[in-house]
């Protein structure tokens, strides 16, 4: 996978058409600022050294400079005004280009929720990774299930808030195959910094292969990749959907040495679970399936209802795999 060199050491690699325009504007204002700041600092230091206070030398009164003063004031009001018109135009023209979706762009629905991204491809396939085909225009429709998140791909120079109760979109055309990340740029709670999704820009063949196999058990899964059994696939889904952040690694119910937000899952299969409302329920397939699709239905005793987001986007095969994985946990 050829990684395109970024146009300046300060920017991440440019992997979409939107990136090149932003980089031009960035470099233009960067070099202007370096020159301007250097000039201001140099002149100040020059004056400070040249007119250092020496015995017997008085400062010159500025009262005699009134004509020069007004000319200079007009100069350094008018010139910056002209310059900022150029700056505004440069910024606005690229912005409008990046904000227009190409005709016939493939639409992917992005659901943001507390601490994971979920992508819904045309044709119903859903995944936690963003798979894109190189040189194909895309339009990602963003929405959020709970609080404000911000969909941000540094390699594409694109960012848009996913606001609950509203839609928004980002439009781009990936130009370089490779890997990138979706980050969350608006603070959204405890694991805001862990809300990262992988972006895979694939050649057309790889992309077709992904679309065909999505939602079904892949041949190889887990890290390091081994032959994929139901438990193994369940385990990798457990990782991908960030279940460990609340239920502890391998569902042990511990995070950072303390009791985790979500109940312990290891070894619960087949045993009755005492619930917060005093009743108890047997942890069979239906209990686990319901706890994934409608989490607030049954709250385990000793835990508060922290509004675990429903993972309604998992397909049946995926749910089977996760249940198998939890069954295998001792």
């Amino acid at each position, binding site marked *: 996978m050829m990684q395109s060199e970024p146009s300046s050491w*300060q*920017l*991440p690699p440019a992997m979409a058409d939107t990136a090149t*325009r*932003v980089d031009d*504007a960035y470099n233009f*204002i960067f070099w202007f*600022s370096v020159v*301007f*700041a250097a000039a*201001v600092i140099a002149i*100040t230091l020059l*004056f*400070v050294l040249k*007119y250092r*206070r020496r*015995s*017997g*030398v*008085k*400062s010159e*009164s*500025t*009262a005699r*400079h009134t004509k020069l*003063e007004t000319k*200079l*004031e007009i100069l350094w009001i008018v010139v*910056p*005004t002209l310059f900022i018109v150029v*700056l*505004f135009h*440069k*910024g*606005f*023209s690229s*912005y*409008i280009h990046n904000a227009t979706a190409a005709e016939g762009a493939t639409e992917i629905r992005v659901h943001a929720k507390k601490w994971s991204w979920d992508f819904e491809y045309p044709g119903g396939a859903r995944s936690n990774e963003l798979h894109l085909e190189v040189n194909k225009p895309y339009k990602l429709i963003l929405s959020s299930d*709970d*609080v*404000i998140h*911000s969909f*941000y791909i*540094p390699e594409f*120079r694109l960012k848009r*808030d996913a*606001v*609950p*109760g*509203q839609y*928004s979109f980002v439009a781009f055309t990936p130009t370089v195959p490779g890997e990138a*990340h979706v980050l*969350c740029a608006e603070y*959204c709670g*405890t694991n*805001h*910094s*862990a809300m990262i999704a992988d972006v895979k820009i694939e050649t057309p063949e790889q992309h077709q292969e992904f679309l065909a196999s999505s939602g079904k058990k892949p041949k190889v899964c887990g890290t390091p990749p081994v032959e994929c059994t139901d438990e193994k696939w369940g385990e990798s889904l457990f990782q991908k959907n960030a279940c460990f952040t609340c239920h502890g690694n391998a569902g042990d119910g511990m995070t950072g040495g303390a009791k985790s937000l979500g109940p312990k899952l290891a070894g619960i299969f087949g045993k009755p679970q005492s619930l917060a409302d005093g009743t108890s329920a047997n942890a069979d397939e239906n209990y686990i399936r319901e706890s994934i699709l409608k989490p607030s239905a049954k709250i385990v005793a000793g835990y508060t209802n*922290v*509004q675990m987001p429903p993972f309604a986007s998992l397909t049946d095969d995926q749910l089977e795999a996760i249940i198998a994985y939890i069954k295998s946990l001792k």
Partner: protein
Amino acid sequence: MAAITTAPGTYDEVDPNTSYLENNKGLMGWLFTLDHKRIGVMYLISVLMAFALGGIFALLLRAELFTKGQTLIDAETYNRAFSLHGVVMIFLFLIPAIPAALGNIILPIQLGAKDVAFPKLNLLSLYIYVFGACFAVYSMIHGGVDTGWTFYTPYSSSDPAHGGVGTSSSVIPMTLSVLIMGFSSVLTGVNFIATIHKMRAPGLTWRRLSLFAWSLYATAIIQILATPVLAITFLLLTMERFLGLGIFDPRLGGDPVLYQHFFWFYSHPAVYIMIVPGMGIVSDLIATFSRREPFGYMAIAMSSIALALLGFLVWGHHLFVAGMSEYATMVFSALTFLVAIPSGVKVFNWIATLYKGSISLQSPMLWALSFIFLFTIGGLTGLFLGMLAVDVHLHDTYFVVAHFHYVMVGGTVMGFLGGLHYWWPKFTGKLYNESWAIAGWLFVFLGFNVTFLVQFVLGSRGMPRRSYDYLPQYEFLHQISTVGSWILGFGFLLLGAMFVRSLLNGRPAPRNPWGSAALEWMTPTPPPPYNFVSDPVITRGQYDYHLATDDELYEGFDDPLLSHKSRKGGVDEGKEDA
């Protein structure tokens, strides 16, 4: 003829020969004082305590970010630490620091007045600030907030206890605290505008006002017009979280982007409440330490007012990616650039003042010069964020964090420290140790740049702000930044030690230690309760070094460079040559 004539009549109720510190000593004398100087000193103490607390949170944040993953604290504590760092630094330190602390002490003296227009209101403003701070401490004891200082809804307003999706941290006491402290800021604003309009000494026309007074006038306009909108926003936020209103929370039919409009309509002018007084101090410092009237006096004064008024038009640049309409985005981007003009005018005029001045690099001047350098970098990076296409990439990243620290710490804090060094002899009556001051400045200047220069690159490479953990490629830059924060922290400790040492056994300060022509140096040190021995009548401007008499300028001014001969004016080059 002495420039400041003394009109007949003194004030018999108060003995003008005792300083405001000796007169009516004792706790009651301080707690129920109406003297603007004592209220200013009490503000200064509480504001410095807030700065220390905010600094501790900052060091905790930087230490945690030293390595990827968990270094010291877990995500929950980190999120509360950065939120409290923001709230404490902005609402408890930056906004009251220069207007309420230094402004209260110095403004009436610079106007030749006995006190501010409404002394009782001034004391009430202090107690409202303390009352508000108690709510903030209460919230901190109960775990503080983890919403950032911006309290964006629905995360802040949607309480999980009522089936909401937001935070369970103690938001309500904190928003009430900010609401209450807002009124303290409004009262200071009302007081200052009335004082500048009505309490000026005879002869002190608008063109003879000090530039610090002009900047406080502009700041007061913002304090009066912007703070009430914050009060309404936080009142609605508190009610929405407590009872559920349906104005900002989308689940109840509200609009979270509307909250951002309301929040930033106050908060952008608020950043001008923080920076404009800093600029006022720098104008006075540049004038005193190059012994010259500021070049383009009216231009600098009017640019303060322009900054205050334009500051109200640009709040939308915080919402470029928040889901605002493209039309509004275009309008706000165009207006945002207008704000760069007055800032530029100020910097150019400061530099022009240095031209052919008699510049002495004493510690206050070092702070003023570093203000010019760092505020220039801060302002230029603001241009990056004003350009729409670039802002989409840089918004909510470390680039923004670096930008506002360059403007807030590089600008306001350096201006505040410059003012503190400059007026310290006047209101404490003690001199501080110059070499310690320069050492302190060096550590702060170096530590600040090491900490925040690398954060520009962190941001342009796409590291989001307010993140407890980060991708591996950002680790090295974070380590540099954390080391820089230790140097910065040590620098502030050094300055603190210097000021304490000066209080304990500093040499007594003469009337005019810097040889300035400004009005506040014409009264004894520390000033009497009504600031002047008798009503001053002003016959020249604050910066007319060529009209000021020698005894006004040089009594107690022991600058080694000015040899004895020139002080007595042997070769009288004081007169205008040709």
